[in-house]
């Protein structure tokens, strides 16, 4: 026997309401985590070097927005940093706190495009200097992908940071070898392939890194 029409509608509405509530409930722990992360960010002094907005400074610590570092890599680095960052051991920053801080960083707004800021846009043209010649054959796409997925650790200019500098990779490895590293990275480098980056991305990033600073032998 089918339900009367009004009952079917009521059931449908109830189901929608329950789903929405469930979604809201599932979003609340995330918001709580982000808020907890924000409190830890300030309480444990992270903002001192990386800024309240994760913007960093050349004299204190790198920018951390947009934050793309996987949790494992982040946890590994804060416990035993290779740079001048002081170590945050388990007692000072438990694993749950690392999760919360990461959630906070991920929640921070991405940097604005300076081209949209009138006070900064002229600098992109560098006072009329000619545009920089492409330092790598696939500089455009590869550079953009590198910036999105790799610069957090290796620096926007491949100068290193959390991860090693990559400016001499073109002298040390062939393009094929760099692609292999991207597909099967050594720990603690996050494994972004094939989940986050695909074959075409691997090829573009490898070509960009290999060619950085000028063409080198394959």
């Amino acid at each position, binding site marked *: 026997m089918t339900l009367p029409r009004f009952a079917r509608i009521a059931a449908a509405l109830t189901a929608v309401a329950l789903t929405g509530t469930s979604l809201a409930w599932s979003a609340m722990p995330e918001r709580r985590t982000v808020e907890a992360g924000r409190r830890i960010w300030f*309480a*444990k*002094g992270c*903002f*001192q*070097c990386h*800024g*309240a*907005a*994760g*913007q*960093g*400074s*050349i*004299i*204190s610590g790198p*920018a951390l*927005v947009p934050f793309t570092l996987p949790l494992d890599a982040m946890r590994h680095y804060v416990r035993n940093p290779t*740079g*001048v960052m*002081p*170590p*945050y*051991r388990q*007692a*000072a*920053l438990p694993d749950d706190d690392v999760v919360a801080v990461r959630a906070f960083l991920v929640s921070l707004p991405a*940097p*604005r*495009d*300076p081209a949209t*800021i009138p*006070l*900064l*846009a002229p*600098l*992109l043209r*560098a*006072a009329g*200097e*000619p*545009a*920089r*010649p492409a*330092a790598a054959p696939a500089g455009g796409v590869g550079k953009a992908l590198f910036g999105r997925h790799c610069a957090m650790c290796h620096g*926007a*200019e491949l*100068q290193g940071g959390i991860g090693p500098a990559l*400016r001499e990779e073109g002298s040390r490895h062939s393009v094929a070898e760099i692609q292999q590293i991207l597909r099967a990275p050594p720990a603690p480098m996050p494994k972004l392939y094939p989940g986050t980056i695909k074959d075409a991305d691997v090829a573009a990033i490898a070509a960009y890194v290999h060619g950085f600073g000028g063409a080198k032998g394959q």
Partner: protein
Amino acid sequence: MPSDMPEPRRRGFLKGSLLVGASALARPAIARPAPPTPNANAALPTAARAMAEAGAVGITADPEAPIIKHAGSDLMVDLLKSAGIRYVTATPGSTFRGLHESIVNYGGNKAPELISCVHEEISAAMAHGYAKVAGAPIACLVHSNVGLQHASMAIYNAWCDRAPVLVLAGNGLDATQRRPLVEWLHTMTDVGTIVRDYVKWDETPINLEHYAESFMRAHQIATTPPCAPVMLVVDSDLQERDVPPASRPALPRPTHVAPPAGEAGAVREAAALLVAAEHPLIVADRAARTPAGVKLLVTLAELLNAPVIDRGARMNMPTTHYLNQSFRPELIGKADVILGLELSDLWGTINTVADKAERHARRLAAETVKVIAISANYTLAKANVQDMQRYFSPDLTIAADAEACLPQLIEAVQSLLTEERKAALAARTPKLRGDFAEMRAAAARDAANGWDASPISTARLSMELWEAIRPLDWGLVSNSAFISSWPQRLWDITEHHQYIGGEGGYGMGYGAPAAAGAALAHRDAGRIAVAIQTDGDMMVLPGTLWTLAHHSLPLLTVMHNNRAWHQETMHLTRIANRRGRGVENWRIGTTLTDPPIDYAAMARSMGVWAEGPISDPAKLAPALKRAVAVVKQGKPALLDIVTQPR
């Protein structure tokens, strides 16, 4: 009764006698002497006779006290004028009251003009900042040992920063002339010991002729590169004694010493290394002493087509020039020849030590790099202070003032450049231009990070300020380091006077008074001065604000108010992390909160126009516009901006 007694007294006496006589009728008769017979011809006593009998009662024959018409300190003012000293900064003190009065009355308070300061450290730091803009020293008067102790931090900063300052310290050397208590407490046998380790020269002259010669010697030593503060004791007795014209010493001429240039052979050798280099790099710190130094450095860099890293103790290289690649530290490691020009720290340019528990040195430059160092500092050494930094042996060392040596080096380079070599060097240009463009673009991308954040990002503060001042004739008079060097990364800094570096000795308290002194020099040149002022530094000598208002100095102070001694917040966090305890206690003893200081109210209390606190970046531009309007009228203004840490 004396016969020469004046008539009214005699009558009174007689009357009294009659009364006594009447009363005597009631008593038994006593034999009395007969009263004297008055002498009608007796002369009245004179004042001189009365004085001779009674002693002097302070009345002299002359109607006025003698005037000291030829004070020793008048000559001291003549010396200041002869040496071209335009200003004397001072907190008043009794040990130099003579010179103070001579400046005001004998000298007409003009060239030199007395600049009133509420603390001697302000006096000395103002002289430091002034010298870097004007290219000439002023004098700073201090009250013996206590005043000199106050001033000593600022004198140390000036020493480290190689800035000429004439410190004149009042003192009372003759113990027999000191009044009890204070004049003994405020004097020393050798007052120069307080600062001897960080002045280039000091002396205690014992007569006026000695003083005159020593003053000119002090001026000469201070202004000969490597420039530095000097101290001269100005004895109270020398100031206040009357010196008859016949005894007055002649004024010695000032001496201007041509700065030391480089040994010819060494300069040729340096030129050869640089011309042959494939990856030359020039690192400049205090290279440009004057505007000419900037032009010379640009000429050399262009001849070699060599990038320049400007370390920023002075403005050495225009930020708009494609060879200014100051924010590409990787160039140190790539260079095959490095030319260091008046570097504060050559060892620290080639190497670094990270602030980790184990202090290991790490080399930044290639092992095979050839290092050439040109600096006048090789002629100056003090044993106790350690500003010379860690020992480093360059491949070629030239003891010369860099700016004075540059013409020789340029000529030597020109003589070695063949047409073929010129073409090879020119081939570097496209990459260099591209690298420069990318460096500036990267700075713009970094600046966009946190652009709309509150507290306000230092990038946002810097760029809004730049927008407000760029149409004017301006000079930045604060240290850019603690504001992430945004002005050097984003502004067009093209003139020598537009940046003067920082403390030298990194001694806190330099910022506000040095900015005031620099603003004084900028005012004379028809410019406005701009300072991005850190809060902790301001609180060391906030009384500077009164001097700004009192003397109408056109300084725009924009507070970089991160409500902490931020460097120390990071230190405390670092140590707590190393020790695995109390990481969350970093606020204790490092923050300027509870309550937060109201810098605008503080400034207004001392007569400075001010607004704030402002933490909304959207409110920056209109507030800056209002503040700039005040400064364009020749008055100081302050904006309290609540900012990100760095």
